[in-house]
C-alpha cells in the first residue's frame, strides 16, 4: 500500500476507510477533530512536523465533506515557517481551505510578499502559486508590482516567470488597474518572443485576459500571435517535450487562436494571408486517427480554428468548407465530436449565407434529437430551434411534438416552450398554430406553462377567422377521456367565448356544452373553477332563447359557490349570479372579450429571462437576432406599457367601451379609467415578474368586492382605485419633451436619492434600457461602473453618454459603445476624483435610439459629497480639544434648522450612518443630542476631520440645531448645507441648487380630472 510518508496521517486515513458506515466514519472524524482541536489549543508543545500532520488531516476531513471551522489560523501560520516542508504545507492547505474573501488571508500578505521579493526561488514559487490561486483584491493592490518584476526580468528562471505570468493574470482579474495599459503593451509584445514554451503558454493566457478587456492597446501582439501559430502548426523549433501525442502544444495553439478572436479584425493583408494559410492547413489537415488523445488534441485545435474562421468572416468558400466539416462531424459515432459538431453548427448560424447549407443536414440533426446522451439531445434541440424558419417550421415543430411524448422529463419543459415559440413565430397558418398548442397541452400538459395557453387565447381572440375553428378543436378535446387541467382551462375559455359559433352542430348546444364542461369540474383545482364559472355565465348569456332548465342548473352552481372559501370563486359566483338576473346588463358585460393589444410574446420573453440554461438562452437570442422573414405573429409592442406584466390581460369580463349605451356611460368612464390605472399607470407593480393568474383575474376584481354588489349599477369602481392621486399622476404622466416618447420606469429623482445613500442600484430605467450603477469609493477617488443593459431583442443604437462634471470633480468615462447589442449589458467604468468640497452634482447626458424613438435623459450621478466621507470614531480626548480649537465661523458654523423630517434619535443615528458619519455615543452628556465624526477626502483638503453636533428638541422633532466644525471653511459650509438638505428633503423633491433640470414629467392639468383625457394619454 502506498504510504503518505506521515504515519499518523496514513493511520487516520486507513481508519476512516475501514469504517463500516457513515455513522462510524463520523465518530472517527469527530474524535480526530477533537484531538486536533486540543493539540492546537496549547500550540507551544507542537513540533512543526506535528502541526503539518494535523493540518493535512484537517484538509482530508474537509475533503470528506465535514465542516472544519477551526485551525485555519494554524494553516495560515505555517506559511511563515522558516523551513520548506512546513511552508509548503502552509501554502497548499491555506489555498485549499480558504477562499479569497477570507479574513485570515489578509494576515499573511506581508509574509507572502517577503517570500515573493526574497531571493529563495522555491519560496517564490510557493507564494506565487497561492496568490495565483486564491489572491483577492487586496493582494492585487499590494503585490502586483512585485509580481510584474518577476515576470519581465530575465534573471529569473522560467519556473518562476511562468508562475508570475499566471499570478499576474489572477491579480488582473481581481483588479484590472494593476496593469498599466500604456506601459504594459510593449512588455506583453516582448513576452511573446519568449523561447521557453512554459512561460510562453502562461503569457498567452495573460494576453487573452488583457485583450478580452481592452484589445486596443495590444495590436502589436497580433502579428506575433500569428507567427507563433505558424511556428507551431509547422512544428518548427518545438522541443519534443512540448508536443502532445505528436501535436505541438495543442494548448498553446488553442490559446493563441483564442487571443486572436478578441481583435475585431486583421487589417494587415500579409498577416491575414499567413493566418488564413495556417487555418486552412488546420481545417484540411486534421484527420481522424485511432488514438483518442491525439484525436481530441487535434480536434481541440480544429474547433478553435473554426471559431476563428467564423470570427474573421472568411470568404464564402472557406465557410462552406467549415459547414461541410461540421456536417461530417454531426454524423460520426464519436459522441464528443458529434456534440461539438452540433454546438459549433449552432454558432455557425450567426454567419450569414450558410443557413441554407446547414438546413441540408436537418435529417441528421433530428436523429441526434433521439441520441441516448442528454448533452447531445440538448445541442440538437438548440440547433433545430436556431435553424427553424418559415420554410421548415412545420417539419421541425412536428418533430419536436413527436419527440415530446418520449422525451425525458428534464427536457420536456424546454422542449414544449421551444415548440410553442417556433409555432408562434413561423406558423404558415393560424389554425396550424392552434393545433400545435393544443397538441402540446395534450401531450405534455404538466410542462406547458400558463403563458403558453394565455398566448393561444390571445391569438384566437384577436383573429376572428380562427374563432370557430378553435371552438371546434376545443370541443373535440373535451371528448377525450382524461384530459389535462390546462386543457380544461383553455377549452372552457374558448367555448365560453366562441361556443355559440357551434350552436348548429350536434352535441354543441349550450346545454350540451355546459354539461360536458361541467363534467370536468370535480377533477380540477381551485384555480380553474373561476374560469369554469365565467364560462357558465357566458354560456348562459348565449343561450337564446333562454333555457330555464339550464338557467336553474347554472344558478344552482353559482349559489353553491357563493359560500366558497376561496375568495375568487366566491366573488365570481356572487357577481355572476347577480349579473345573470339583470338580463340586458348581462349581455353587455359578458359580451365577447375585446382584442388584446399586440405585444411581445411572453413566451419569448420568458425564454430570454430564463437564466438557468444559458445555452438554451443563447440559441433563443440568436434566433431573435436573425429576424428572418415570416408571417410573424409576434409583433413587438412598440411602446410597452410601463410595468405592465408581459402577458395580456385575459380578463373574462369585457370592459365596456366608450360607445355603449348612454345610461351606462358614467360607469364606463369610471371603469376604463380604473382599468387604465391598474394596468398601465401603476409605476410600481407589486411584482413585475407578473403574477399571471392575478393578471388574468385583474379586470374582474374591479367589479368590486361582494359586499358592494348592491352598488354595482351605480359604480363599479371602488373609489381608491378610480382616481389616481395627484402625486401619482405627477410622477407618471408621459414626459412632455417631444424627443422622449419613452417613459422612464420608476421615479428618476427617487432612484438618485436612493443611490446617494447606497453604492449599487438602478439609476434609470425605461422599457428599452436599464442603467445600473455600482460604485466604490476610496478616499478622494471613486470608481463608478455604469451597467447599460439593453432590455430589447434588437440593438440600441447611437448610444451616447456625456458626463457634465461640476468644477470640483474630475471625471473620466471610459468609451461607451455606440451600439448595445440585443439583451446585452455593457459596463462603462467612470473614474472620479474629488478636488474640493462642493455639493454640486455631476450629470450624465445619456441618449440612444431605438427604432424611431430617440431618447435623451439627463441623469444626476450619485457622486455626491457624502461619498467622499469615511466614518471615523473619535474618543472624548480627541474630540473636545479639536472642537474647542475650531472656535467659530468660518470653521465652525451653527444653524437652527426648521421643517426637519421628524426622526427619533435612533432613526437619526441610523440615517447618519448611511450618510457615512460615525455617531459617537456618550460624548454629549445630553441624551437629546447627537455627536458624529467623519473624515472628508478631497485633493485640496486631503483627509479632513469633520465634527458634527446635533441638538434636538424632544418636544418638537421638526427642528434642531446643527453645529459643524472642520478645518476648512468651504467644507464646513458645504457639509452643513448638505446635511440640511438631507434632513429636510423629502426624497422625491428635487434639490434646489446646482443640479440642472432633470426632465421632470409634468402632465397637462386637464388630465387630472378628465378620465377620458387620461385614457387618451395612455393609449
Amino acid at each position, binding site marked *: *500500500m*502506498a504510504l*503518505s*510518508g506521515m504515519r499518523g496521517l496514513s493511520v487516520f486515513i486507513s481508519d476512516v476507510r475501514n469504517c463500516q458506515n457513515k455513522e462510524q466514519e463520523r465518530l472517527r472524524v469527530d474524535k480526530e477533530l477533537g484531538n486536533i482541536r486540543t493539540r492546537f489549543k496549547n500550540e507551544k508543545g507542537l513540533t512543526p*512536523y506535528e502541526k503539518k500532520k494535523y493540518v493535512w488531516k484537517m484538509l482530508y476531513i474537509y*475533503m*470528506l465533506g465535514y465542516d472544519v471551522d477551526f485551525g485555519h489560523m494554524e494553516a495560515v501560520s505555517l506559511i511563515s515557517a522558516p523551513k520548506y*516542508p512546513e511552508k*509548503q504545507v502552509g501554502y*497548499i492547505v491555506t489555498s*485549499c481551505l480558504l*477562499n479569497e*474573501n477570507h479574513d485570515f488571508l489578509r494576515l499573511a500578505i506581508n509574509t507572502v510578499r517577503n517570500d515573493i521579493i526574497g531571493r529563495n526561488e*522555491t519560496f517564490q514559487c510557493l507564494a506565487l502559486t497561492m496568490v*495565483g*490561486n486564491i489572491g483577492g483584491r487586496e493582494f492585487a493592490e499590494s503585490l502586483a508590482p512585485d509580481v510584474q518584476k518577476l515576470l519581465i526580468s530575465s534573471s529569473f528562471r522560467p*519556473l518562476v516567470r511562468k508562475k508570475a505570468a499566471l*499570478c499576474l*493574470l*489572477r491579480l488582473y*482579474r481581481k483588479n484590472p488597474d494593476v496593469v498599466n495599459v500604456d506601459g504594459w503593451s510593449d512588455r506583453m509584445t516582448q513576452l511573446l518572443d519568449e523561447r521557453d514554451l*512554459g512561460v510562453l503558454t*502562461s503569457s498567452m493566457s495573460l494576453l*487573452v*485576459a488583457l485583450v478580452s478587456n481592452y484589445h486596443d492597446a495590444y495590436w502589436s501582439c497580433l502579428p506575433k500571435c500569428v507567427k507563433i501559430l505558424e511556428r507551431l502548426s509547422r512544428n518548427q523549433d518545438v*522541443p519534443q517535450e512540448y508536443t*502532445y501525442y505528436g501535436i505541438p502544444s495543442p*494548448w498553446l495553439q*488553442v490559446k493563441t487562436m*483564442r487571443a486572436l478572436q*478578441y481583435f475585431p479584425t486583421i487589417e494587415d493583408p500579409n498577416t491575414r494571408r499567413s493566418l488564413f494559410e495556417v487555418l486552412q492547413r488546420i481545417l484540411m489537415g486534421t484527420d481522424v486517427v485511432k488514438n483518442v*488523445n491525439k484525436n*481530441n488534441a487535434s480536434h*481541440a485545435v480544429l*474547433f*478553435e480554428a473554426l471559431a476563428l474562421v467564423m*470570427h474573421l468572416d472568411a470568404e464564402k468558400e472557406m465557410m462552406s468548407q467549415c459547414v461541410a466539416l461540421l456536417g461530417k462531424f454531426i454524423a460520426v459515432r464519436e*459522441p*464528443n465530436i458529434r456534440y461539438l459538431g452540433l454546438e459549433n453548427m449552432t*454558432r455557425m448560424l*450567426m454567419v450569414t449565407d450558410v443557413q441554407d447549407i446547414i438546413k441540408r443536414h436537418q435529417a441528421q440533426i433530428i436523429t441526434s434529437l433521439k441520441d*441516448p446522451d442528454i*448533452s*447531445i439531445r*440538448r445541442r440538437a434541440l438548440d440547433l433545430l430551434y436556431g435553424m427553424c424558419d418559415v420554410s421548415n417550421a412545420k417539419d421541425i415543430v412536428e418533430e419536436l411534438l413527436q419527440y415530446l411524448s418520449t422525451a425525458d422529463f428534464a427536457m420536456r419543459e424546454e422542449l414544449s416552450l421551444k415548440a410553442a415559440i417556433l409555432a408562434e413565430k413561423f406558423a404558415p397558418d393560424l389554425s396550424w398554430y392552434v393545433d400545435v398548442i393544443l397538441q402540446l397541452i395534450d401531450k405534455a400538459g404538466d410542462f406547458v406553462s400558463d403563458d403558453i395557453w394565455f398566448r393561444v387565447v390571445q391569438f384566437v381572440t384577436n383573429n376572428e377567422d380562427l374563432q370557430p375553428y378553435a371552438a371546434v378543436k376545443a370541443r373535440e378535446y373535451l371528448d377525450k377521456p382524461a384530459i389535462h387541467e390546462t386543457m380544461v382551462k383553455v377549452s372552457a375559455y374558448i367555448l365560453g367565448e366562441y361556443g355559440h359559433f357551434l350552436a348548429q352542430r350536434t352535441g354543441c348546444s349550450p346545454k350540451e356544452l355546459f354539461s360536458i364542461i361541467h363534467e370536468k369540474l370535480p377533477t380540477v383545482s381551485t384555480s380553474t373553477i373561476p374560469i369554469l364559472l365565467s364560462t357558465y355565465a357566458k354560456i348562459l348569456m348565449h343561450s337564446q332563447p333562454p333555457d330555464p332548465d339550464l338557467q336553474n342548473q347554472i344558478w344552482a352552481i353559482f349559489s353553491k359557490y357563493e359560500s366558497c372559501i376561496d375568495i375568487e370563486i366566491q366573488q365570481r359566483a356572487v357577481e355572476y349570479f347577480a349579473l345573470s338576473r339583470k338580463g340586458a346588463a348581462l349581455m353587455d358585460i359578458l359580451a365577447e372579450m375585446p382584442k388584446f393589444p399586440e405585444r411581445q410574446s411572453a413566451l419569448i420573453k420568458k425564454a430570454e*429571462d430564463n*437564466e*438557468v440554461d444559458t*445555452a438554451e438562452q*443563447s440559441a433563443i437570442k440568436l434566433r431573435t437576432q*436573425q429576424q428572418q422573414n415570416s408571417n410573424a405573429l409576434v409583433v413587438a409592442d412598440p411602446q410597452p406599457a410601463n410595468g405592465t406584466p408581459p402577458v395580456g390581460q385575459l380578463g373574462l369580463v369585457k370592459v365596456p367601451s366608450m360607445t355603449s349605451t348612454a345610461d351606462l356611460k358614467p360607469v364606463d368612464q369610471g371603469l376604463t379609467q380604473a382599468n387604465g390605472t391598474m394596468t398601465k399607470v401603476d409605476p410600481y407593480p407589486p411584482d*413585475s415578474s407578473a403574477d399571471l393568474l392575478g393578471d388574468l383575474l385583474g379586470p374582474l376584481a374591479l367589479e368590486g368586492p361582494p359586499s358592494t354588489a348592491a352598488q354595482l349599477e351605480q359604480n363599479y369602481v371602488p373609489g381608491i382605485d378610480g382616481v389616481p392621486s395627484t402625486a401619482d399622476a405627477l410622477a407618471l404622466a408621459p414626459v412632455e419633451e417631444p424627443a422622449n416618447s419613452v417613459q422612464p420606469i420608476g421615479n428618476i429623482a427617487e432612484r438618485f436619492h436612493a443611490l446617494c445613500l447606497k453604492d449599487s442600484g438602478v439609476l434609470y430605467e425605461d422599457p428599452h434600457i436599464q442603467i*445600473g450603477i*455600482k460604485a466604490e469609493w476610496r478616499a478622494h477617488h471613486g470608481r463608478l461602473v455604469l*451597467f447599460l443593459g439593453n*432590455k430589447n431583442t434588437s*440593438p440600441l443604437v447611437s448610444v451616447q453618454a456625456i458626463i457634465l462634471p461640476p468644477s470640483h470633480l474630475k471625471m473620466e468615462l471610459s468609451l461607451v459603445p455606440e451600439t448595445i*447589442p440585443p439583451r*446585452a*449589458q455593457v459596463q462603462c467604468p467612470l473614474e472620479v476624483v474629488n478636488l474640493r468640497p462642493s455639493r454640486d452634482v455631476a450629470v450624465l447626458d445619456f441618449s440612444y435610439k431605438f427604432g424611431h424613438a430617440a431618447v435623451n435623459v439627463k441623469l444626476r450621478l450619485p457622486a455626491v459629497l457624502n461619498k467622499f466621507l469615511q466614518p471615523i470614531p473619535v474618543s472624548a480626548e480627541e474630540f473636545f480639544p479639536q472642537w474647542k480649537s475650531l472656535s467659530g465661523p468660518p470653521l465652525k458654523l451653527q444653524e437652527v434648522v426648521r421643517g426637519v423630517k421628524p426622526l427619533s434619535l435612533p432613526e437619526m443615528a441610523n440615517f447618519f450612518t448611511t450618510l457615512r458619519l460615525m455617531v459617537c455615543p456618550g460624548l454629549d452628556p445630553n441624551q437629546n443630542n447627537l455627536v458624529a465624526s467623519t473624515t472628508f477626502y478631497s485633493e485640496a483638503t486631503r483627509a479632513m476631520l469633520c465634527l458634527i453636533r446635533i441638538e434636538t428638541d424632544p418636544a418638537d422633532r421638526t427642528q434642531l440645531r446643527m453645529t459643524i466644525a472642520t478645518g476648512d471653511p468651504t467644507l464646513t459650509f458645504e457639509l452643513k448645507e448638505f446635511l440640511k438638505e438631507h434632513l429636510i428633503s423629502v426624497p422625491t423633491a428635487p434639490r434646489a441648487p446646482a443640479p440642472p433640470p432633470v426632465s421632470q414629467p409634468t402632465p397637462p392639468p386637464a388630465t387630472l380630472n378628465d378620465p377620458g383625457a387620461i385614457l387618451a394619454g395612455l393609449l
Partner: protein
Amino acid sequence: MEVVKSMSQKTLSASESDIGSVVSMVDRMAGMMDCKKALLESGGDIIHFVLLISRQGKVRLTKWYSPYSQKERTKVIRELSGVILTRGPKLCNFVEWRGYKIIYKRYASLYFCMCIDQDDNELEVLEMIHHYVEILDRYFGSVCELDLIFNFHKAYYILDELLLAGELQESSKKTVARLIAAQDSLVETAKEQATIISNMIGQATK
C-alpha cells in the same frame, strides 16, 4: 446583426452570460453569488474548479479557482456527483450544468471533472485532464485510487505545477516531473537535517 457580427463571438457570449437578464441585474448586483462575480471578473477562459470523485461519490480532491463559499462548495459537489456518476458509458464527456460546462473523464474508479464556461474549448480541457492523469501515472508508477487517497497531498502538489489561476501552467510532462522531484528532495533534505540535528541534540544531551 452587423454589430453582432463585428463583435467577436467570445465577447458577445461573454456579455450575454454576464447579463442574463437585465431586469434582474440589480438583485444580482446586491446579492451576487461569489461565483457569479468571478465570472464577471474573469477575462477569457478559466477553469472554475477541479474535482476528483470516486464512483462511490467520495471526494478525492477539490481545487477551487473561483471563489466559492463553503456552502456553495458542498452544494456543487453534491449536485455534480448526482449528475456525473449517473451518466452511462459511451456518452460524451461534456455535461451542461447551470450555465457552465463540466468536462469529465472516468479513469477506473475515479472521475476527474473540470468546470469551464459555456464557450470554452471542451476538448482542450479534456486533454488537460488526461495530461494530469499521465503525470500522476508517471509519478506513482501506474497510479490507482489508493495512491491518491493516501498521497492526496502529492496530487495537490502536482496539480499546482500543472494549473495555476485556473489556467494551464505547464504542458511538458518532463518539466512537471522535474519540479516535483526537486520539491520532494527539498523535503527529504529538510527531514534528514532534522534527524541529524535531533541526533546531535540526542548525542549532546546523553
